[in-house]
């Protein structure tokens, strides 16, 4: 039991201030007694101040003040604020109960013991999985509750290079260990080298029969302002085409009949010819994506596996359309499962959306906004949950993000992003938010329902994940140059 400070100033039940004897870092856990019982506090800010030095106005005085400050230990003040995390007794029972009263002024503040923190952060029951260590206590393992991820959604919001995809890969690995079903919507082909067990790489496939004419137009890259082409496509893309065994053939024949019909207006004939060209080109380039025989995208996705859906070769709109179809099918399938109808996924499905701002933008609606919003709202009932991953939280649809039950946050520098995060989760306070930019790679604030108490965590590094880190150009150049040099020289080949 080390006393590290004394409660001073105005104390409130949820937040205390204390003067510390020594260095106390942000993210550290301390405890103090209140009338309600012993309370755990998370240090959110730590200020170091010299009264003498803070008031000087010129250099000479500063030098004098420095000397005076050196010999006067009273002058250096370590001022900390800490937020109540909950009554320790209750936390150990898995509940978060806040104190109703602050500690009395003058109450000693103690460093929370490692043993206590271990009991709080590490839980060996099966829904808990380890993801890292407490940032300020390297011997305290932090576990998260996967059940909460699978029901209450998770948002990973962090700047580029702060370890978003590492955390997602880690979660994927843990889910795989628990035989969970997960789909990663891999917008930048970041996970194609994920080398964990039970990973399945799914090429995107869509049955054009399930698309309406507008979606088909988008998938074929017909410009949105090409209204004539879209109108004609709508006209010819009727039931007869959709139901024809040879969908493309029938569609093209119908267009040809327009293109070759002398009675049609010249403009219509030209549009039809152009559409034919677009379809041929689209099939040549994107032929693999269209599968007129596919019954449902569900068949491509395997239960109890980590399914990585590679969307990297699609345009934004195309990716949105595919995602919309996949997610709608999955949500419907899970509804069937809950209502005891035949279904593919008998157990919950977790959907990780990389670059989530592409799929649920704040300012407009995308082709898949609706289904993502629906999953965010009602997915919990049906066992479909989201993991939203984004480096620009403020560009995410706030309604959807507010449904997220858990957060992992790091390195957000933009004030808008910071205030967005504080708006949507009450667990990241202004004080803690201020430390966000100073977090290093892999250091994250974990908050929300998936952790017992919010904490600054050093997330474990996933070896199986190779992508996402920046290319080592220097090394790669050296390697290539060496390869050239290393090949056996002609001189060595000639043995005289």
């Amino acid at each position: 039991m080390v006393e590290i400070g004394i409660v001073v100033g105005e104390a409130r039940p949820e937040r205390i201030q204390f003067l510390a004897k020594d260095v106390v870092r942000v993210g550290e856990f301390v405890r103090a007694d209140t009338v309600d019982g012993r309370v755990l506090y998370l240090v959110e800010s730590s200020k170091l101040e010299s009264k003498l030095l803070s008031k000087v106005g010129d250099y000479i005085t500063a030098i004098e003040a420095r000397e005076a400050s050196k010999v006067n230990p009273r002058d250096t003040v370590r001022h900390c604020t800490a937020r109540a995390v909950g009554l320790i007794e209750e936390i150990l029972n898995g509940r978060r109960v806040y104190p109703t009263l602050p500690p009395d002024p003058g109450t000693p503040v103690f460093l929370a013991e490692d043993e206590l923190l271990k009991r709080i952060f590490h839980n060996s029951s099966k829904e808990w999985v380890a993801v890292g260590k407490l940032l300020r206590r390297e011997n305290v393992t932090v576990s998260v509750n996967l059940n909460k991820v699978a029901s209450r959604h998770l948002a990973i919001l962090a700047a580029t290079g702060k370890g978003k995809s590492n955390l997602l890969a880690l979660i994927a690995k843990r889910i795989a260990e628990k035989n969970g079903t997960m789909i990663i919507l891999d917008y930048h082909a970041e996970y194609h080298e994920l080398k964990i067990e039970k990973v399945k790489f799914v090429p995107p496939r869509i049955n054009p029969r399930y698309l309406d004419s507008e979606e088909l137009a988008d998938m074929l890259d017909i410009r949105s302002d090409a209204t004539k082409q879209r109108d004609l496509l709508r006209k010819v893309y009727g039931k007869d085409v959709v139901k024809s065994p040879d969908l493309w053939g029938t569609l093209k024949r119908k267009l040809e009949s327009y293109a070759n019909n002398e009675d049609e207006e010249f403009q219509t004939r030209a549009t039809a010819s152009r559409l034919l060209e677009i379809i041929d080109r689209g099939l040549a380039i994107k032929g693999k994506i269209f599968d007129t025989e596919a019954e449902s995208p569900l068949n491509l996705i395997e239960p109890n596996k980590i399914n990585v859906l590679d969307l990297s070769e699609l345009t934004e709109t195309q990716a949105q359309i595919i995602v919309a179809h996949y997610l709608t099918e999955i949500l419907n399938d899970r509804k069937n499962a809950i209502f005891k109808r035949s279904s593919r996924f008998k157990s919950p499905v977790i959907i990780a959306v990389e670059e989530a701002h592409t799929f649920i933008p704040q300012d407009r609606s995308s082709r898949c906004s609706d289904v993502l919003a629906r999953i965010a709202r009602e997915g919990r009932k049906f066992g479909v949950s989201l993991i939203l991953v984004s480096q620009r939280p403020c560009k995410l649809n706030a309604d959807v993000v507010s449904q997220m039950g858990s957060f992992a946050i790091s390195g957000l520098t933009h004030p808008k992003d910071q205030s967005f995060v504080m708006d949507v989760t009450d667990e990241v306070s202004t004080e803690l938010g201020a430390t966000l930019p100073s977090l290093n790679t892999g250091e994250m604030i974990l908050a929300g329902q998936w952790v017992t108490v919010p904490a600054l965590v050093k997330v474990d590094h996933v070896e199986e994940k190779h992508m996402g880190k920046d290319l080592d150009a220097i090394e790669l150049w050296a390697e290539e140059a060496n390869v050239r040099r290393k090949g056996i020289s002609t001189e060595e080949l000639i043995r005289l």
Partner: protein
Amino acid sequence: MIIGHVSDTHLGAYAGKDREREQDYYDAFQEAVDIFIKDHVKLVIHSGDILDSSKPYGTAMKILAEGVKRLNEKGIRFIFTLGEHDISNVPSTPHPYILDVLGIANYVGTGEPLVIGDVVIAGLHKYKKVEREELCRKIKEVANRAKQIDGKRRILVLHQGLIGLHGFAGEISKDDIPMDFDYYAMGHIHMSYDFRHGNGLGSYPGMTHWVDWDDPETSFVNLVDLSSDEPKINKVRLESVRPRMERYVKFGELETLVRELISLKHEDHKKPCLLIKVETDRPFDPKPFEDSLSVSYMVDIKQILKEVGREVLHEVPDMDAELRRLTEVALGSNEKAEFALFELLKALNDEDWRKGALEIIWKVFKEGRLR
């Protein structure tokens, strides 16, 4: 003083594939040796790609050894470097080097200058494009060493392409070669080509017999007169080279062309190689046409499928389909063929084939199949 210069003899090309064509390269080499002997050259320089393969068949080595021996008997030194065809891709002694070991020829690819009479000959073996830096450094070194030897005519022997001369075959630029030599005896480029370099002359004699249809039809060896201030190159055409013809027709006109070609009279000593490119909608069997032409030509019919615009030389035969067809012909019905190939043959391959096969046949008999 006259020296002989030859290059890219590719001895052993077509070995094991076509005896007549294989002989063409031997003929050309022997003809070159005859020319050198007849013209009383002082020495012969071979600029590399002596052999077609770094793992040659014995005949190629025999022809090479015989030729060099004949030159040697007339007091003509055979001096050579190595081309990429002579150098194997595992560290090993290149076959032509055996001539040096036997003492009937001199390898100059190491860069060590060789003095024969009043001529200094220095050379390097082939360097790959990626070794350009090393090559340039070596050439300068070789030039410096050759310069040390006074009062002689200097010859540089290289097996490298000059950049810009022939598509991608170039490794060095002319500027990389010091101008300290009187004659630059080059190899590697298959066409005959001369160039001026400083006060000297450079020359690719070209290959002694064409290999690809892109190669020049005629071949030469160089007789280089070094007695005057400026070297003079006399190109002697090799007569033994097989003539060749190329025709392009649509399938419909093929028969007429074939008749026309058969009626042509050839004075040549060798049957010409004939390449007919036929534009066609679907693949056809070229054999009847080839057979009727084969009396006077060595025929190759290339089919160019018009629709897909690609060339089909020989269709890859579908062995399984052919086996099935033949089985059907032999057994008389498709069902029997299927039974034989897919059921019985499988059983016969098993260890306990007697039992298995009998069981299957009995089963088929009972079921009344294949009656």
